[in-house]
């Protein structure tokens, strides 16, 4: 199977939403779901499942200060694998013990459990630079987001 998530510095316009207005974390995840739907990756019910994951397990998707990664398991409402980036006009709190408030949310849709792995590994490379989250939050154009996401490239070999 061909890996079909585009490189992060080539994310299409519908996969990037800047300064979305969200009153709370559920509304912020709905904005992520809207971007995934606009990108042709999922049906709106995927947003309900991303919210349900947080309701079940808590705000563990807030994985770094200011950053959440919304996602749910693969399912029939995922039509294509993809990643979206949503920045918020005003940060929202998820109730995380250390990493609130959140201003940048990545949305991940996978059609099978292992398909996303290469893209996720490249995310890990990028966000090891702690200046990236505030830079993304402040970005004013999609091209700026793409440029920031292209700043680092996956390293060769096993994550050394």
């Amino acid at each position: 199977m061909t890996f079909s998530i585009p490189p992060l510095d080539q994310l299409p316009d519908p996969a990037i939403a800047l300064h979305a207005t969200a009153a709370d974390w559920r509304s912020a995840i709905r904005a992520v779901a809207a971007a995934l739907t606009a990108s042709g990756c999922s049906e709106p019910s995927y947003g309900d499942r991303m919210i349900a994951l947080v309701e079940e397990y808590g705000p563990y998707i807030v994985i770094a200060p200011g950053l959440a990664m919304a996602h749910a398991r693969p399912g029939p409402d995922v039509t294509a694998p993809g990643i979206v980036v949503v920045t918020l006009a005003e940060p929202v709190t998820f109730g995380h013990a250390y990493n609130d408030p959140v201003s940048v949310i990545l949305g991940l849709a996978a059609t099978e459990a292992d398909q996303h792995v290469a893209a996720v590994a490249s995310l890990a490379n990028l966000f090891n630079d702690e200046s990236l989250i505030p830079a993304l939050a402040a970005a004013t154009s999609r091209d700026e987001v793409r440029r920031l996401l292209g700043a680092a490239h996956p390293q060769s070999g096993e994550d050394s």
Partner: protein
Amino acid sequence: MKIVALCGAGIGTSEILRVNAVRALDRLGLDADVSASDVANVAVAAAGAQVILTSPELVGSIGRTNADIVVIQNYFDLDEIAAKLEAAIG
């Protein structure tokens, strides 16, 4: 040595934690088999594991285990991950 990175759905966050744990172990000069899993499968995935890496929110969902549970606050902070892994296994 076996280490399991744990999240709620088994995609996404646990994979980020796995990748950065491998890097942190490299930095420490330690060798380990690091895998990613979800809470629903933790009993099987973590059988025989020395360490479970996870987020503060998921600790209560893990249940009974002989592994050391290491809580990571910032999944991208290699200093934090390396220090906590070293304390657990070094």
